Every structure is written in C-alpha cells, then in structure tokens.
C-alpha cells in the first residue's frame, strides 16, 4: 500500500522533475510568514530607489510601491549624503504625481490670441500630431536658415539635460539655450569662485563645527541638504553655537543661539564688521592665514589705521591666503562694530559677541552663505564678504568647516560636433537672447565674461527682438511666467513667441501661452535620469527611476521627447539629431537605441557607466553591474579629503584670495573686451566700488527700487519648507500644513508685519491687504507677527498661482490663490554674476482692501 | 376667528417642523459637516438645547412632586401638565441628542448592549429609559385617575410614582447630565464644583417658567383659568427664590472668572464680554429684569408673571448656550487660537423643528386625550 502510493506519487511528481521552478516566480517568496527583522509589507510591496527633486538637495529616496501604486516615500539608506533620511517635502511628491490636474495627453492651442486673460482653448491631440507640428516648425527655421530663432528654455533638470538643452539646440543650430540657473543662486557661487576658485555651492561639516554663522540661509527648511542638516542639527547643538542672520525669524533662527535680524541688504556691513573684530582682536586662524612677521614693528590691527608694507610679507606673512593687508587697508580698517550697528540695525554688543565667539571657535567656525545676502543687486560682493570669513577662521576645506564637492566620475555625452551641419553652425554663431557678455552684463561665471546665463533678462531679449526675434521655442520643467521676478514681462515675452511648446506635468502660467503642451513624466516616479549632490563629506550620484507605470500618456522630457522629435526630423530629411542620439549605445550590449524608451535607459547607463561597471571602476562605491546599481539607486564618493586644497586653490595665486587677483583679471578682461576700464564697467553695472576696492570683499549699499517715502517697507521673500520649488501649491497637504513655516497660517497666504508697523499702517491680523511695489501688486492676508523685523514685510514664495490646478488657484486661468512675490519684485540683477535679485531689492507699501 | 388663529398657529408649527425635517435630511446625507462643530468645539447648539430641555423635564417633574406630595391645592390644576411637559421635553432632549450623535441607532443601544459603566453617558442614557418609562406610566395614571375620579388606586399610584420620580429627576437625570460636563477635566470652564447646583437651579427655574407660560397661554386661548391668584403668588415667590439663586451663582461665576486670573478664567471672561456678550447680557439682564418684575406687586400676576417667565426662559437658554459653547471655545493650550462656534442654518432649522415638534406633541397630547374638558370638570 505504502509502496504503491509512493510510486504513484513519484510518477505524478516527476512533476518536479520537469521544469517547475517557474512557480517560484508567480508566488511571493513568503506568504504565511513575514521576516521579523525586516519590514514586513503586503506581498506585492516593493521599495524602489529614485531621487526627490523637490529642492536641490536631491536626496536619494525610495518609493514603496504596493500593487503598482506609489504609497510611501522614505530616504535611501544607501546614500551617505542623506543617509536614509528625507525631509517633509519629499512626501508631498505623492500628491504631485497623483495630481488629478496633471495633463493627460498632448494638447494644442485653438485660440490664436495670447495673453494673460486669453483662454488658450486647448484641445487634446495625439503625440504624433504634436511632434509633427513641432518638427515642421523646426524644419521651417532650418529651411530659412534662421535656426538662431529657435530657443530652448529649461528649469529644473537632471543631468540628462544635455541631450535636449545642449546637444539638441546645437544640432538644430541655435545659441539660445536658456537655463534657470540665474534665478537659482548664481551669486552664491560668486564669492567662493573669486576667493578660492570654486564656482559651486559648499557643504558644511556641522558634525564637527563649534560655531556656525548663517547668512540668509534656512537649512532646516530649504536648500541645501535639508535632510542631512535636519538629521544632525539637534545633536550638533550640543557642541556648536549657531547664529542666524536673517530679517525674519526663520526656523533655523528659532533653533539657533543667536538671531541677528539684520536690515535687508546690509549683510555685507555685518560681514565686514565681523572681519574687523576678528582682525583687531587677533582671532584669525594663524595656521591658515599667517601672522605678523616676528621682527615687524606693527604687530596688530588697529581700527582706522592703515598698514603700510613696502613689499608683501614685510609686516604680515601670509601662509595659504593672499592680500589680507590690502583688504584691511581698502575695506576693513574703518568697518567698526559701531559703524555696522548703525547700518544693520543690530546692537553693537550682539555683533561683538557673535564675532568673538565665532573667532574663538576657529577653525571649526563656519560662515555659511545662503541666498539671502547674495541674491541682491550688488550681491556678488556680499557673497565674497560673507564667504571670506571662512578663511579668517581657517574653516576652508577643514574639519568642521566649509567644504567643496567631492569628486565624482560620471561621463558626459559624446561631442555633437560631427553632427552640426553648416546651417547649424551659422545659426549657432548668433548672439544669445539674454545679452550675456555685453558691457552692462559681465556675468563672470567661472571668471569668463558672459560665461553665465541671465535667465530673467531673456524676457527683454524676446520682447525687444534683441539680438533677434524668437520664432520657435521649447521649454521644459520650468515656469518662468511664475518664477521670474517682474513676471509680467514674461507674459508679454511669451505672448510674442509665435510658436511655443511647453513640456510640463501641470498646466501652469507658462503653459497658458503655449501652442503645444506636452505632458511630462513626474521626475521622482516616472523618469530616468541622474543627479549629483553633496553633504556629510560625501557626494552621491543618485538615479531617478520609474517606480510606477505612468498612468497617462506622458513622456520623459529630457530623453524621450527629443528622441521622438529627432525621429520626426529624420522623416523630414534632417537625420543629424537622430544619428547623434543613436551614437549613444547601451554600454552592456553595445546596442544602439531604437525607441524612445531604449534611448532614455541607454543614455543613462552610458552616462553613469564608470559608477556601475566594475571594469571601469574609478572610486567610491563599487557595484557588480547596472542591475545592482539600479537596485541600490545611488553611488557614493570617497570620503572628503580635508585640507588637500590648502595652497592649491584654483585661483590666480593658488591661494585663498582676500585680494582677488582672479576677479581683477576677469573684470579687466571684460573691460578690455568693451574697450574701457574697470571703473566704467562698475559704474555701468551699478556698483559703488572704484579702483582696487573692486577686487576685495567689501560692503555695498543695497540697491532698492522705489522711494522710502512712497514705499516704506522692505519686502523680504523666503522659501517654504513645503515648496517643491514653485510646484506644491496644487497639493492640499501644502496648504493645510503651511503654518509649519513659523509665522505663517494654514490654508492662507500671508504677508507678515511686525506689530509696530501694523499699528503704524493700521493693519489688523487677518486683514485682506494689497502689497504694492513699483512694478506690481498682489493680494494676500495680513499676519501680525513678532518674528519680523520692523520696517520689513516678509512673505513666502510659492503661492499666487493663477494657473496650476484647482487647488493652486482660486479660479484656474483667472484668479490666483494668494499672491506671487515675483509679481512685485522688480527685475533687478547682480550683474557680475548674472543672478536675479530676490532679496533686499523691493520696497512695498501696504494697502488695506 | 379663533379657528383662523389656530390654523395659522398650527400651519406655522408644521412649517417649522418641515423645515426641521429638511434639516435632518440634509444632515443625514451630508453628515455633521453641515453644522458648525469643529475639532475644538465638538458640541454645538444641539447639546445646549439638550441641556435646556432635559432641565425642563427634570424641573417640571420636580414641580409635579411638590404639588403632589405637599398637596399644593392651588397648583393641582397644572399637575397633569407638568408631567406632560416633563415627558415631552425629555423626548425633545433625546431628539436633540439624536440630532447630535453620528449613529443614533447605535446610541439607542447604549445602555442595553453597548455598555461602558465608567461612562456618565451610560448612566444618563439609562436614566432616559427609566425616567421616560415612568413618566409615561405616570401620565397613564393621571389620565386614568382623571377619567375615573372615583378610583383611588390611580391617585395612589400617581402619588407613589411622584415620590419615586422626584429623586429620579434629581439624581439620575439632573446629576448625570450636569456631571456629564463637570466630569470633563479637559475643559476647565466646566470642571467646577458649583456647576451642578447651578445646572439644577437653572433647570428648576426654567421648568417653572415654562409652566407659567403654558398656564398663561391656556388662560388666554382656552379661556381656562388654570392658576388662581394665590397660585400665581406662590409661583411668583418660587420664581423669585429660584431666580435669586441662579443670579447668585451667576455672580459667583463671574467673580471667579474675572478675578481668579487662571488663564481659562481670563479667556472665558474675554469670551463672555466679546463674542458671547449678547448671550451673556440676555442671561444676566433677563434674570435681573425678571426678578424686578416679580418683585413689584403686580409681578405676581398675569401678564407680568408671564413676561418674567419669558425673560427667564430666554435667560436660561442663553446660560445653557454659553455654558456649552464657551466651555469648548477656550483654547486648551497656550498660544493656540480661540476657535469660535457659530450654529449654521441647518442646525437652527433642526432646533426649531424639534421645538415645534414638542409644541405639537403637547397640543396633541392635551387635545387628543380630551383632558381639557375633564380637568375643567374636575375643578
């Protein structure tokens, strides 16, 4: 019996013997059980690695996908930059990707009239029709040899950007690829570049710092590395003191030991005074800066007294720096605490206390430069003035100091030169639409005259057809009609472009002026790409990967759309672009892409090959191959090499320059280009410095639009901890948690006034008010709040969309919900860096409605 | 003439009732989102009305006890009506509860199936069943007693029941309901030892006032003199005594709020003198004027007695409203905003509807049972 049974079984269960293993694929690994130590989630639940681009922290994140839906978000523990953490805004992305107001299908405009109050009357079309139309327009330009009248605008990006932003524009044959960088924080890079040769943001080693002096940055709520700093802030407070310079009580200021509510635009004065205190009290860090010569008659800095050197090093022997005595003579000697107290509106005691404690903490004393003091007209010098404090305390490149980015090893896409034909070459030779490099626009990005972009000035170029008209424009991941100051100019500029394509997730203000709207993938959930960022002494390269199936007919704007367009162009006899794209092959199989989807993936694998291919290993994390890299989602660099750059900086003198020979060379080159001298350039560009002062960090008075009499209050713009750049206003979570920005109210857009001003202008809490500046006016509610400097009115950026969705606007396409700061901020610039001024630039008056 | 008046009166009542029904329908479909309640103020006007009517219910039962046990012959004529009012306002109060809770059907099961003996709510809901049942039985006794004046059994039953009902009214209706609030430690405004006497006192005075109103209207409309002069005088004295009691307690409250300098007290005082000023004034001035009216010689006669009764009813409803609403509006944490409650139209519809329903029930009870004539004969 038993035997026969067994035989039966064996017969039946030879079963096993012929290819059963597949059933394992259908079934989840565990059904009746769950792993106790690990997360036990429903059977078809998975964490997929991707990246959050809610701000430029660019944290590596993971998305929990259950039954094909994204349900949860968490930080990717494999990243050494954000270490499994993510800030609050990463979670709002769920409401972004599942925003019912996202555009489902391509659309075209049927109302030929363009303007703020014109309903575009969009109608859905197919991708084919949309791309055919665009291809026709481009071909028309090419046929007429006017490819320079094509323009590409981009906002946020991944590093796949070059495929559309750079290569596509070049191959079509236009000089006009305009990025948003100048409305980001270019001036923040200005100071570090002209002192230590790094055109980049910094990372700050708060784990080892003893004193952190923060200038107009709010790292616990916005940019950069919010996740990293939030994770270590509380415990770091045990060993570090924090002083925050900001006209409003930011969240970082509430978690600081000192709040210095400086008058807007006067940061430079404070910085100079602090440097003055450090020098007169002998608190500079001697192993980095150096000291007075032993046999020198002068052995200290005395207020008001110039120090004369017959030849450099006579009196003061510098080690890793250059030009300290010149700086003292040109700028610092008279910048006493009392002088600064008057300028900044702070008490002399506080300035002295902060300066002394800051100096005593050297070299673990960080001067942290944020956008606040620098994204101002003349902000470039404030950027230098604040940043150089890092050199006085020896925090540059030091433990507990201000560090640059670590090395990473991504590969740039192949050169397009072989694919640029004669038409394109001719087109490319034209001048750019944003006027960079002209006499009044030095824009010394990386020291080169006209090296950077002047995003906001492109509007003027388009409106005035200067240097030429724009006939066809494609834009992606941007919303200049909302995000650029004096945004009304963009409304006029965009109305003027006869054929405008917008690649976007939501129908935005920009979209309202477009002829074709292309629905785009959400960066975090539906897109292939990679970005890099740094903190914690590491740099990571983190992948953006589709974690869910797109539920609408959307495409990736940086890869799939240009590919599809290239296919259309090829059909019209212009195959260069497609040929170029096809040259980017899958490194694993060496296969050329054949579809848009393949192109998106192959180009990403191409760009990151050195990170994941063990045969091409160069450093940092090592992977067995693409599959592992894609699963982990992030590559980490080697740890930070401290003090490696001391004496080897990328400046003219190889040293940290208090007297910037680098800036001198750049400015002189720009002056020479325009056959004039540096003083003339400075005058043209609205700076106050003349002579050699132009080459040292120094204080410049703020430049504000409007008179004090007519517009008595200074507007203070700031960013919310819930802003996913300007894109969270259509999420209900954003509005109901808005009161988590200290001083703000939930479900409201408020402008905050100090009770003193409120009394002066007879405004009560909750009043409906109008903020009027010389260039525009917005409506919002009044909030009376003590955390605001008297004489200022602070308002958060992010609301005031008149088109972004049902939640974001009171009436879509017509009436905004709240007010957009950019309507009242005048288009003003720090012309040396090209940066748009957001702060310390706008005077307003308050009118009760 | 009389007919037309009563037609207008009844159509008004029915119209209001229909409005109330409309309100109930809307609220049932949409949920309590149509009311003014919020996270901070979860109990609104329904609960205020509930406390008002539960007070009247208990109060008028107590009056019936007084009449019966102390054999107050002057008031014999309203004895039946006190019980009728007691029952109807109990039903009304429960209706307000039903309007207030999310799952009325589940609520009906509270003392029977779903029990939590630590909850005062459990005891007060038991009390509604017991009390309601006994009131019905008492009513039946009265009807029988009146219909069979010879049969002493019903009178005796009624007397025993009246004696039972008194402690019930005091102990299991007023106490748990007053305590419903004062047990809540979270709301310091309620968590005061004198709240219960205040609550009970107010209940009594409002019940007496309601009886006066009924007596006056019966007299005017039905041309039946329910109360003779000495009865009115007696009631007048009762009212003076009770009004004074309530006023004293009010005064005490005010002083405590004003001068204790506890944050809740200060907030409550602010609320009383700002957003709730109207109700506060109605409460205090109503009682003061009613007292003055009663104190003057004519005050213990109709119509002055009637006017003072009306004032008292208004004052007590204002008191109930303030008690419930302010108790919740005071922020629980320092720095938190005061969240104001305003009843919405739907809430007002439903309140009016329930009140109209009670009035109609009273008419039907008195009218259908043809007790009017019987009483007349009896007297």
């Amino acid at each position, binding site marked *: 019996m038993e035997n026969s049974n067994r035989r039966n079984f064996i017969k039946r269960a030879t079963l096993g013997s012929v290819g059963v293993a597949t059933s394992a694929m259908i079934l989840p690994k565990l059904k009746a059980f769950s792993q106790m130590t690990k997360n036990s989630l429903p059977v078809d639940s998975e964490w997929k690695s991707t990246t959050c681009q809610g701000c430029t922290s660019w944290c590596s994140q993971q998305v929990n996908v259950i039954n094909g839906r994204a349900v949860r978000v968490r930080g990717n523990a494999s990243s050494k930059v954000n270490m499994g953490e993510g*800030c609050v805004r990463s979670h709002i992305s769920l409401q972004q990707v599942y925003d*019912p107001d996202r555009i489902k299908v391509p659309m075209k405009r049927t109302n030929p009239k363009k303007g703020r109050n014109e309903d575009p009357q969009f109608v859905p079309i197919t991708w084919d029709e949309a791309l055919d139309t665009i291809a026709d327009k481009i071909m028309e330009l090419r046929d007429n040899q006017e490819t320079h009248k094509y323009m590409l605008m981009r906002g946020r990006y991944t590093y796949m950007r070059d495929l559309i932003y750079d290569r596509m524009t070049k191959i079509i044959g236009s000089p006009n690829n305009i990025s948003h960088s100048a409305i980001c924080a270019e001036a923040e890079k200005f100071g570090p570049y002209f002192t230590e040769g790094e055109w980049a943001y910094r990372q700050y080693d708060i784990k080892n710092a003893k004193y952190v002096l923060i200038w107009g940055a709010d790292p616990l709520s916005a940019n950069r590395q919010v996740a990293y700093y939030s994770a270590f802030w509380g415990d770091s407070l045990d060993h570090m003191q924090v002083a925050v310079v900001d006209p409003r009580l930011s*969240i970082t200021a509430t978690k600081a030991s000192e709040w210095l509510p400086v008058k807007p635009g006067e940061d430079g004065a404070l910085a100079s005074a602090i440097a003055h205190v450090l020098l007169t009290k002998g608190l500079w860090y001697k192993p980095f800066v150096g000291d007075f010569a032993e046999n020198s008659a002068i052995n200290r800095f005395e207020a008001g007294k110039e120090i004369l050197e017959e030849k450099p090093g006579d009196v003061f022997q510098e080690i890793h720096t250059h030009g300290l005595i010149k700086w003292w003579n040109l700028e610092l000697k008279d910048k006493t605490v009392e002088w600064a107290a008057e300028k900044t509106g702070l008490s002399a005691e506080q300035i002295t206390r902060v300066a002394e404690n800051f100096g005593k903490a050297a070299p673990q004393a960080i001067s942290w430069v944020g956008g606040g003091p620098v994204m101002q007209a003349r902000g470039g010098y404030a950027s230098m003035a604040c940043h150089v404090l890092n050199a006085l305390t020896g925090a540059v490149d030091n433990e507990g100091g201000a560090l640059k980015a670590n090395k990473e090893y991504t590969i740039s896409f192949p050169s397009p030169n072989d694919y640029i034909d004669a038409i394109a070459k001719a087109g490319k030779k034209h001048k750019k639409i944003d006027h960079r490099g002209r006499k009044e626009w030095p824009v010394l990005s990386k020291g080169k005259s006209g090296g950077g972009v002047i995003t906001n000035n492109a509007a003027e170029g388009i409106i005035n057809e200067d240097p030429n008209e724009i006939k066809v424009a494609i834009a992606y991941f941007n919303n200049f009609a909302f995000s650029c100051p004096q945004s009304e100019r963009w409304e006029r500029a965009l109305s003027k472009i006869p054929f405008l394509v917008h690649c976007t997730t939501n129908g935005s203000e920009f979209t309202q002026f477009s002829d074709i709207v292309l629905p785009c993938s959400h960066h975090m959930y539906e897109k292939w790409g990679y970005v890099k960022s740094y903190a914690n002494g590491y740099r990571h390269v983190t992948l953006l990967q589709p974690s869910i199936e797109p539920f609408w007919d959307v495409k990736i704007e940086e890869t799939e759309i240009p590919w599809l367009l290239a296919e259309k162009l090829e059909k019209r006899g212009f195959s260069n672009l497609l040929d170029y794209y096809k040259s980017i092959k899958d490194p694993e199989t060496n296969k050329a892409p054949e579809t848009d989807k393949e192109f998106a993936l192959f180009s990403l694998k191409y760009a990151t090959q050195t990170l994941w291919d063990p045969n091409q290993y160069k450093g940092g994390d090592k992977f067995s191959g693409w599959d592992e890299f894609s699963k982990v989602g992030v590559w980490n660099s080697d740890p930070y090499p401290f003090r490696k750059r001391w004496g080897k900086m990328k400046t003219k003198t190889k040293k940290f320059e208090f007297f910037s020979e680098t800036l001198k060379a750049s400015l002189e080159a720009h002056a020479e280009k325009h056959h004039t001298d540096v003083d003339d350039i400075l005058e043209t560009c609205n700076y106050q410095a003349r002579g050699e002062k132009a080459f040292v960090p120094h204080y410049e008075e703020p430049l504000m639009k409007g008179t004090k009499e007519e517009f008595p209050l200074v507007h203070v713009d700031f960013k919310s*901890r819930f802003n996913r750049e300007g894109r969270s206003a259509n999420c209900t979570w954003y509005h*109901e948690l808005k009161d*988590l920005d200290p001083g703000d109210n939930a479900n409201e857009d408020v402008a905050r006034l100090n009770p003193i001003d409120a009394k002066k202008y007879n405004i009560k809490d909750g009043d409906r008010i109008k903020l009027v500046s010389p260039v525009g006016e917005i409506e919002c509610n009044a909030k009376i709040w003590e*955390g605001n400097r008297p004489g200022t009115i602070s308002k958060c950026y992010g609301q005031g969309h008149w088109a972004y969705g049902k939640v974001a606007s009171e009436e879509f396409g017509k009436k905004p919900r709240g007010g957009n700061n950019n309507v009242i901020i005048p288009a003003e610039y720090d012309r040396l860096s090209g940066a748009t001024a957001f702060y310390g630039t706008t005077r307003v008056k308050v009118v009760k409605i | 003439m009389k007919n037309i008046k009563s037609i207008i009166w009844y159509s008004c009542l029915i119209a209001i009732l229909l409005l109330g029904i409309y309100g109930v329908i809307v609220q049932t479909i949409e949920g309590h989102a149509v009311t003014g309640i919020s996270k901070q103020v979860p109990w609104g006007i329904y609960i205020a009305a509930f406390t008002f009517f539960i007070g009247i219910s208990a109060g008028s039962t107590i009056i019936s006890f007084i009449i019966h046990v102390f054999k107050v012959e002057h008031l014999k004529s309203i004895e039946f009506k006190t019980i009728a009012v007691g029952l109807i306002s109990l039903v009304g109060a429960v209706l307000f509860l039903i309007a207030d809770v999310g799952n009325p059907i589940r609520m009906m099961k509270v003392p029977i199936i779903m029990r939590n003996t630590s909850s005062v709510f*459990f005891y007060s809901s038991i009390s509604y069943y017991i009390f309601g049942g006994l009131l019905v039985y008492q009513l039946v006794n009265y009807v029988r007693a009146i219909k069979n004046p010879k049969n002493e059994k019903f009178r005796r039953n009624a007397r025993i029941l009246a004696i039972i009902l008194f402690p019930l009214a005091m102990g299991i209706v007023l106490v748990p309901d007053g305590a419903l609030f004062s047990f809540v430690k979270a709301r310091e405004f309620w968590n005061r030892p004198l709240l219960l006497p205040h609550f009970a006192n107010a209940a009594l005075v409002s019940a007496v006032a309601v009886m006066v109103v009924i007596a006056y209207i019966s007299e005017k409309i039905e041309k039946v003199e329910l109360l003779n002069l000495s009865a009115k005088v007696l009631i007048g004295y009762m009212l003076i005594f009770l009004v004074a009691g309530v006023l004293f307690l009010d005064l005490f409250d005010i002083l405590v709020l004003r001068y204790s300098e506890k944050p809740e007290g200060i907030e409550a005082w602010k609320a009383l003198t700002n957003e709730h000023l109207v109700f506060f004034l109605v409460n205090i001035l109503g009682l003061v004027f009613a007292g003055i009216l009663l104190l003057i010689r004519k005050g213990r006669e109709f119509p002055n007695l009637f006017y003072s009764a009306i004032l008292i009813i208004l004052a007590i409803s204002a008191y109930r409203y303030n008690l419930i609403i302010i108790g919740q509006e005071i922020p629980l944490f320092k*720095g938190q905003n005061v969240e104001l409650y305003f009843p919405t139209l739907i809430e007002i519809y439903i309140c009016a509807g329930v009140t109209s329903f009670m009035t109609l029930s009273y008419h039907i009870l008195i009218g259908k049972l043809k007790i009017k004539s019987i009483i007349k004969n009896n007297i």
Partner: protein
Amino acid sequence: MENKKNQRRDFLKKAGLGLATIASVSAFSSPLPTNEEKKRLAMIVDLQKCTGCGACTLVCKNENNVQDGVFWANKICKTEGKFPNVRYDYIPTLCNHCDKAPCVKVCPTQAMHKDENGITMHDTEKCVGCRYCMVACPYQVISYNGEKPHKRWRSEEKLMVGTASPKELNEKVGGDTIPYYNPERAETYPGIRPKNVVEKCTFCDHLVKKGEKPRCVQRCPSKARTFGDLDNPNDKVVSLLGKHSPFRLKENLGTEPKVFYIRNFNPGKYPR
C-alpha cells in the same frame, strides 16, 4: 466550533464586500491569542532634535489615509516675546495613549478602549459619534468625520479637457478613494474611516504588530522620536527617560500620558 462558523461567515461577508486580497483571503480564521508579552508602549519626543518640520504630521496622514483637514499627529506652536527677543516654540502632539485615558472613561460604548499594549484603540463599529471623547480629551487629538472622508477625491469635476477628474484618476491607478491609499492601514482598522465616527492616532498599531515603529518615528527627518516599551528595562525609551528630565502635557490632570518630551526646542543660550 460555533466560533469558527461565525468567523467563517465574517470572512464571507468581507469577501463579498470585495475586500479580499490574497493576503486576507487566507485570513478566514480569527486571530488566535499570541503569546507575545504585554507591553507598555510609549514615545519620547526630543524637542532639541525636532525642527518643527511637520513630517510627522504629513507621513501620519499618508500612512493612515487621513483626509484633508484632519490631523492625527498635530502640533502646538507659539511665538512669544517682543522683537528682537522673540522665541518660537513647537511641540508635536499626537494621541498620548494615556494610562488613565479620559476618552476611554467617558466613551459610552467602549469603542474607545485600551489594547493589551497600552495603545488607546478605537473601534469604528461601536462608535456612536457622540464626540464625548473629543470633549474629554485634554490634548485635542481626536477628530470627528462630519462627512464622508476625502470629498475632494470623490469629485468628478475636471480642470480642463486634457486633465482627469479626481475620481477618474483614482479609478485609473486603482486606489481606494485616494490614489496613494495605503492598504496596510486596513489590516487593523478601517483604511479610511466611515462618516459619523471619530478617529485618532493608534500608534500605528498595524506597524507595531509587525515589529515596526510607528511611521512618524520611522520617518522623522531629525530622528527626534523614540518609541518603545516602558516595561522593558533594556529599551531605549527607558534609558532616555532616565537621562533627561522628561515632561508630559498637562500632567496635572492625572491622565498619565505616554508621550514624553525631553529637552528644549529652542536652544538659545542668550536671553531672547
């Protein structure tokens, strides 16, 4: 066996309602008593670490599918002082899971009850909607569903021709009312609570049962929250409480809250 029958019927009922996923299919028997030890769960919030970002509030809404306008995890924030000596304070709040919970005491139906681990749980099936718990709770952490939750997501209105209605989107992605609906919540409590009942924080009991921490603890960006068992001397909560002098909200009321706070939000070392 009678018991089994009932369970079986329950199961069929559930399946009929279309709630059955593969995971719950096999769950046709009632849970048997586990032999896990009873715990006294508690949470510690380190205010010095807290940056007042509200991630706790947001991930809580996400985890528990909480509708707009309702917060299981909330905060108290206040600004005090006069310029420039201004102080801002922030205290995250949530259900304190009090040992002597007033809400449990006053609930007429035992819908609000304590579970074996000291979690104050709520049973929507028993809830009358009387809101007595809300009135009795000194911390204002209970909310009432005055209407069917997630009204916005039930709408069929489109923004324009090329967009979807919220309802359409949800149906397309296969969520339950909301497209980012978290099905795990439904393992121990309705995934989205019905109309006319109250709801509040459950210490993420569905996660705790699996040995995970509540989501707000997991996802606090500044790691300000610690969660554990007060009865276990080796637990981190116990050592943390010993290290700092903790406080609780409204301790004087004697509710014995189990959410403790340590250190200060504002580290200012100079007079503010």
